[in-house]
C-alpha cells in the first residue's frame, strides 16, 4: 500500500484538487448567477410594455415610417411569405416590428458572404 506515493502526498493532491475544482466552479456560479440577476433586472421594464401581437388588419404603423404604411406592410409580408413558402406550410404575418439594428446591413452582408460555401 502507498508504495508509489506516500499517504501524505496522496491526501495533499486529493484535498487540493477537490478544493480547487469546487472553488473555481463556485466562482463561476457567482459570476453567472449575477448574469441571471442582470437579465432579470433588464427584462423588467420591457414586461410593462403592452404586447404588440395584433391581427394584420390592425397593425399599428411604426413611428418613423413616413410613406404609405399599408403598402409597406404588404411588401414586407409578401417578401416574408415568399421566403417561407418552400416548406409548403401556411403562414400569417401577425406583427411587424423594426429590429434594434445592432448590425449594419453592410456588416450583415459581409458575414453572409464569409459564411457562404466555397463551391458557390
Amino acid at each position, binding site marked *: 500500500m*502507498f508504495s508509489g506515493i506516500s499517504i501524505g*502526498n496522496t491526501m495533499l493532491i486529493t484535498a487540493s484538487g477537490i478544493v480547487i475544482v469546487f472553488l473555481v*466552479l463556485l466562482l463561476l456560479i457567482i459570476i453567472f448567477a449575477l448574469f441571471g440577476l442582470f437579465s432579470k433586472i433588464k427584462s423588467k421594464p420591457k414586461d410593462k410594455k403592452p404586447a404588440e401581437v395584433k391581427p394584420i388588419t390592425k397593425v399599428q404603423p411604426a413611428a418613423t415610417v413616413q410613406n404609405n404604411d399599408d403598402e409597406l406592410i404588404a411588401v414586407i409580408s409578401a417578401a416574408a411569405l415568399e421566403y417561407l413558402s418552400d416548406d409548403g406550410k401556411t403562414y400569417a404575418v401577425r406583427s411587424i416590428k423594426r429590429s434594434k439594428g445592432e448590425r449594419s446591413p453592410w456588416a450583415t452582408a459581409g458575414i453572409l458572404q464569409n459564411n457562404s460555401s466555397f463551391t458557390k
Partner: protein
Amino acid sequence: MEFLTQFWDAILKLVNESGIGVMVANFTSTGWQNLVMLGVACLLIYLAIAKGFEPLLLLPIAFGMLLANLPFMNPAENLAVHYHDIPGFVELFKTGDVTLIDMLYLGVKAGIYPPLIFLGVGAMTDFGPLIANPKSFILGAAAQIGIFAAFIGAALLGFNALEAGSIGIIGGADGPTAIYVASRLLNKDSSIQVGTIAVAAYSYMALVPLIQPPIMRLLTTKKERSVVMEQLRPVSKTEKILFPILVTIVVSLILPSAASLVGMLMLGNLMRESGVVDRLSKTAQNELMNIIVIMLGLSVGATTDGPSFLKLETLKVVGLGLFAFAMGTAFGVLFGKIMYLFTGGKINPLIGSAGVSAVPMAARVSQKVGQEENPGNFLLMHAMGPNVAGVIGSAVAAGVLLSMCPNINI
C-alpha cells in the same frame, strides 16, 4: 536442382520473416501476447460496431491495437509506437526509422489532439441549460470527486503520482481529457501506457447506461426521483457569448495548466454562439474533429502492444476505472440530494449523476431513470446543465493533476 534449392530457401526466408513466422519463433516470449492482443482488438472492434460502444473513438483505437500487435521481423518497423516522450521521438527521428504511427502519435504526446477535439466539442455544446441554472456547476464539481477517489485507490495499489493521476482522470468520463493527462504524465518508466487509459476510459463511457442507474436508485428515494423541476429561464445571446470568454479568463487565471483544454473548449463554443463564423464552427464540429479523432484513436491504440498491455497493472486500471465512474456518479447524486434539501425539494437529485462529463449520455440516463418514476418528467435539459458543467470540471481537475503530480516526490 540448384534452382529448386534456391527457390526453397527463398520460400523459407519469406516464411521466417512473415508475421506468422516471427510469432511462432518468439511464441513463448512475445508471440502469445501478440495473439491475445489481436483477439482483444477484434473483441473491441466487435463491441464498437455491433454493440455501438463509443465507436467514433473505440474503432480506431481497437484497429490501432490490432496494427501494433502484428509481428515484424524487425521490431523497429512494426506499427506500434516506438517512443514514450518527445526526447525519445527526437532520437528516433534522427535514426530515420520513424513510421506513420510514430508521426501520428506525436500529436498525442505533444498535447495537440485532445485540445483540438475539445474545440469541436465546444462548437457542438449548448451551455444554455448551465447558464440558466448556474447551481449545476456544483453538481459538475461533485462528480469530479470520483477522479480523486480513484487517485487514492491507485495510490493504495502502489502506483506512483504520475500513474495515479492518469488513472484517476478516467473518473472524469471524458476521453480527450483522459488521453491529454495520461500523455503528459506517463513516460517510458511508467508501468501503464496511454492506450490502456484510453481503452478503459472509452469502454466505461460506453457502459454509463449500465453503471449509473443502480447507483442512482440506491442513493435516492422514490419521492426524490419523482421531483419535477421548474422550467429553465430563457438565456440571451449576449450571455451565451460572454460565457465562453469569462470561463476561459477565470479558469486560466486560476489554473494555467487547464488553459489548453478549457480555452479550446470555449473557443469552439464562442465560434458557435457568435453566429459570425458559422463556417469555422461547422468545420470544427465536423471535418476537423473527424480528422483528429482518426489520428488520435489510431495512434493511441498503437501504444497497446502486448508487453505493455498484458500485465497486472492493466487489470488494476480496469478495476479502478469502474471505481472512478461509480464514485463520480455517487458523489454527484449525493450533492444532488444536498441541493434537494437546501432548495426545499425543487432539485431532482438524479441530475447530479449527469455531472460526469459523458455528454449527452449521462444526461439521457438521468432522464430515463426519472421517467421510470414519473413518465411525464422531462429531466433532460435540467441534466444537461451538470453534464456540460462536468466537462469544465473535469478539465479543471485535469489541470490540477497536471500541475501537482509531476512535482510530487514519494
